Each structure stands twice: as C-alpha cells, then as structure tokens.
C-alpha cells in the first residue's frame, strides 16, 4: 500500500462527501429536464467547473504527465489542438447550439437541421461513443485504486464503478455537477500543488530546464511533422462537440452563459496542461528511468508529504470519476432521449423518461464494466467508434450551425445522412487496415474531406427539393 492512515482517511472522507452530494442532489430531481440538463439553471462558473472536471480526466492528467516525461513539450504543441477546438466552440458554436431551444443531445441538434434519419444515426453514434469512454475511465479508476491499495484490479474496478453508478443514478446531472465542482477543486489544487513541490525538489524551473535533454524542450521534439499533425488533428477534432459537452451547453440559462463558460474552460485547459507537463518533466530529473505510466504516482509517493499525498491521490480519483460520471449520465440521457423516446415511445411522459434515465444509468454502467473487463474485442471495436466521431457527425453539424443566422436551416436536410456514411467508409478504407494512410494524410482528415464533399454534392443536387419522411427537420420547443 502506497498510503498511510492519514492519507487513506482523506481518500475515504472524499468518497463519503461525493456520495453525500449524490444523495442530497436526489432532492433536486423533479423531472427529466432536471436529471438531464440540471433544469437549465447552471451559472457560468458551474458550467466552467463541470467542463474542466470532465475534460481533465485520466488521459489529460496521468496520461499527459507520462507523455511529457517521454516526449517533452511537444505534447503541449499537440494539446493546443484541443484548446483551439474548445475556445472556437465556445465563441462560435456552443451559443448557437444553446439558442436552438429546449434540446438535450447532439442527436436533437442534428434532428433540428436534418430530420429523423440524422437524429437516429447521431443517437446511435453518440451512445457508443459515450459508453466506450466510460469503459476507458473505469479501467483508469481501477488502476489508480490498485496503485493506492495494492489490491487486485478487477474487484477494485467493480467497486469504483458501483460507487460512480450509485451517485450518478441517484442525482443525475445535479449530482454530476456538484461532484464535478468538488472534483475540479480537489483535482486542480492537488495536481498544481504536486507540480510546485516536484519543481521545487528539482531545484526550480530554470534548474530543471537546464538539466533536461534539449529535445524535450523543443516544441517539435524529435517527432516527424506528420506525427505532430496527426496528433494535433486528433486533439482538434476527436472531442469536438462531444456528446457530454453538448449536453452541458443546454444546461445554462442563456446562450451567452454557454459561450463564456465554454470559452473560459478552453483557455483554462491550456494553463492546466502547462502545469501537468511541468510535473511530468520534473519526473525526468527526480526519478530517472521509470515506467512512464507510473511517473505521476511515483512523484506523489516519493516526494509529497503525508496528507498532501492522500489529497493528490484523491485528486487522481477525482480526475477519472468526474469524467466517468459525466459520460455515464450522458449515455443514459442519449439512450432515453435519442433511442427509447425516438424509436419506442415518442409520447412518453416526463415521469417515464425520468424512470428510464435512472434505470439505463445502472444498466449502461454495468454494461461498461463487463465490456471493459471481459470483452476486449468488443471494447476495441467500441474504441474505433470514438475515432469515427469527427469524420461522421462533426462536418454536417458544424456546417449547419455556422451557415446563416442562428437557428437558420440553410443546408439541404437530404445531405447529412449520405455525408455521414461517406465519412465513415472513407475513414475506414483510408486507415491502417486497408490503404495505410496514403500520402501521410491521417484517415480522420480524409474522412472529414469525403464527408464535406458528399455534403456539398448532395446539397447542390437536392437544395430545391422539399424534405419529407425521415429527412423532414424536427421542430423544437424554442423557449
């Protein structure tokens, strides 16, 4: 075991507070709108904190420290893709999404512009996207608990998941928002303090930089430009308008609150990344040669005083739990809204939708654990869904949002479904398994290009034709 009694007490208190928040939040849930989008009452500061807690998960904290330990500040160059994506989304896309009306999901937005067919396709895709990422967070949570306690991975993963499912199922989006607030504070404070302690132990920033291999301090590192481009594009597009972010855009009172909450978060993420990269680089000087995945936990174990160690381990758990709970809540809302209500019960009552949201939280959570633990092939396939998000849904979504005034429908509703299919097929064929990424162009970029091309062609061919059936744009409650 890595921690002593005081540290373990801090971690247990943290768990107890999170569970108490979930229980208290249960009282705020009066209907599906409360469960899914916190009654659309979030102030800017809450949106900022929940976005930050959700985005700074295991990959952005433990993963980024490991990557910078290995590759240096080139990771910052690559991560700028995500910062750019979030700042631009905040300024230009998120307020337009919120302005459409009382919606819940990316599928709803696609339905507003392109009708039922695009809504259904997006619903299925976003559901798979969210379930996959939940499984990834569960694995990360199990590994952190294993590092702390030294106990076997599987029971820890099941216990950690059951805990997350319990408080998320009890309090829905309100529980997620309140726990995200706490988790953001613990995470940002804990990791930054750990970075300051580690930098001090390495002799300060100037001394640290002078001891590092110059390659680690080069913005391009020793990576070929094609690799930097591929990773930059993955950061730029991989989580663009991700389902759990868009659900949050609908949780505020006004489009202006959404704009500033998201833009502030995007800017914050850049500074947080600098702190995490500094922490990873201090590991090069302090630890010498270690397994990169263990850089963060080794610094915590060897250089942090008792008490602070417990806080930082709680922060690492906060990183994965705050991402896991958001994604789980998002998957249950997508299931209820885009799949259950869309396909089975269009006239479902509010009470019925709320009941299905809670039930699906439990089943999706349990399904995520099973997929991550026992079905590695299925899980690998699901992870592929994640890479298909940008070349499938994003181009028709962004074009529809930006073309014309807010809420104006300029793109032909016939165009989205064929463009999505073209994007998926091209990404698949262009990738490693078939064509092997010719000309060094990443498969995602080829997929986005094909998607846009088909969108433009079908739009030109059908723009004068009245939409009908599954291509008839859906109406929304605009208030």
């Amino acid at each position, binding site marked *: 075991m890595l921690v002593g009694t005081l540290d373990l007490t801090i971690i247990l208190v943290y768990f107890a507070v999170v569970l108490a928040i979930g229980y208290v939040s249960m009282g705020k849930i009066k209907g599906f709108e409360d469960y899914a989008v916190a009654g659309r009452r979030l102030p*800017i*500061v*809450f949106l900022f*904190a929940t976005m930050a807690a959700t985005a700074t998960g295991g990959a952005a904290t433990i993963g980024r420290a490991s990557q910078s330990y290995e590759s240096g500040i080139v990771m910052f160059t690559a991560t700028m893709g995500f910062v750019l994506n979030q700042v631009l989304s905040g300024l230009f896309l998120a307020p337009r999404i919120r302005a459409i009306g009382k919606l819940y999901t990316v599928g709803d937005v696609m339905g507003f512009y392109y009708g039922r067919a695009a809504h259904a396709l997006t619903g299925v895709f976003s559901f798979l996207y969210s379930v996959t990422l939940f499984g990834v967070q569960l694995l990360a949570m199990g590994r952190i608990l294993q590092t702390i306690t030294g106990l076997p991975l599987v029971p820890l993963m099941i216990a950690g998941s059951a805990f997350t499912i319990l408080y998320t199922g009890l309090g829905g989006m309100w529980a997620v928002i309140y726990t995200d*607030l706490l988790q953001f504070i613990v995470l940002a404070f804990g990791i*930054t303090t750990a970075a300051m302690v580690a930098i001090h132990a390495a002799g300060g920033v100037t001394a640290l*930089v002078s001891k590092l291999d110059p390659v680690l301090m080069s913005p391009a590192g020793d990576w070929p430009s094609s690799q930097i481009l591929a990773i930059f594009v993955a950061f730029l597009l991989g989580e663009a308008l991700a389902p759990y972010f868009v659900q949050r855009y609908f949780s505020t009172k006004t489009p202006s609150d959404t704009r500033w909450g998201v833009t502030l978060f995007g800017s*914050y993420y850049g500074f947080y990344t600098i*702190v995490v990269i*500094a922490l990873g680089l201090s590991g090069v000087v302090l630890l010498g040669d270690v397994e990169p995945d263990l850089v963060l936990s080794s610094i915590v174990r060897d250089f942090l005083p008792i008490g602070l160690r417990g806080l930082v381990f709680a922060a690492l758990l906060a990183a994965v739990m705050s991402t896991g709970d958001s994604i789980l809540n998002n998957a249950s809302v997508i299931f209820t809204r885009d799949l259950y209500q869309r396909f089975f019960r269009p006239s479902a009552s509010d009470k019925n939708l709320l009941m299905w949201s809670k039930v699906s939280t439990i089943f999706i959570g349990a399904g995520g654990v099973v997929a991550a633990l026992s079905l590695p092939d299925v899980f690998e396939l699901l992870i592929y869904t994640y890479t298909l998000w940008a070349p499938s849904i994003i181009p028709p979504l962004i074009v529809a949002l930006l073309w014309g005034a807010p809420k104006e429908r300029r793109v032909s509703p016939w165009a989205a479904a064929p463009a999505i299919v073209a994007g998926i097929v091209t990404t698949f064929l262009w990738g490693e398994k078939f064509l092997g990424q010719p000309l060094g162009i990443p498969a995602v970029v080829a997929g986005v290009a094909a998607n846009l091309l088909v969108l433009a062609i079908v739009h030109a061919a059908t723009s004068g034709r009245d939409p009908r059936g599954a291509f008839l744009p859906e109406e929304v409650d605009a208030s």
Partner: protein
Amino acid sequence: MSAWSLLVYASAAIVYFAVAATIWGFIREVRAKDLD
C-alpha cells in the same frame, strides 16, 4: 526569472485563481439561492 519560469508559475497561479473563483462563485450562487 527566465521565460520558462514565468510561463510555469503564471500557469500555476491561473489554475489556483480558477479554483478560488469557482469556490467564490459557488458560495455566491448558494447565498443567492439562484439554483433552487
């Protein structure tokens, strides 16, 4: 102080500031009972 030091310490200060602002914002919202 080198440019690297300035960048790292300024970033850490901004993260701490974001934490303080979040706590302040939370207290303000709860006092205003705007969330009920």
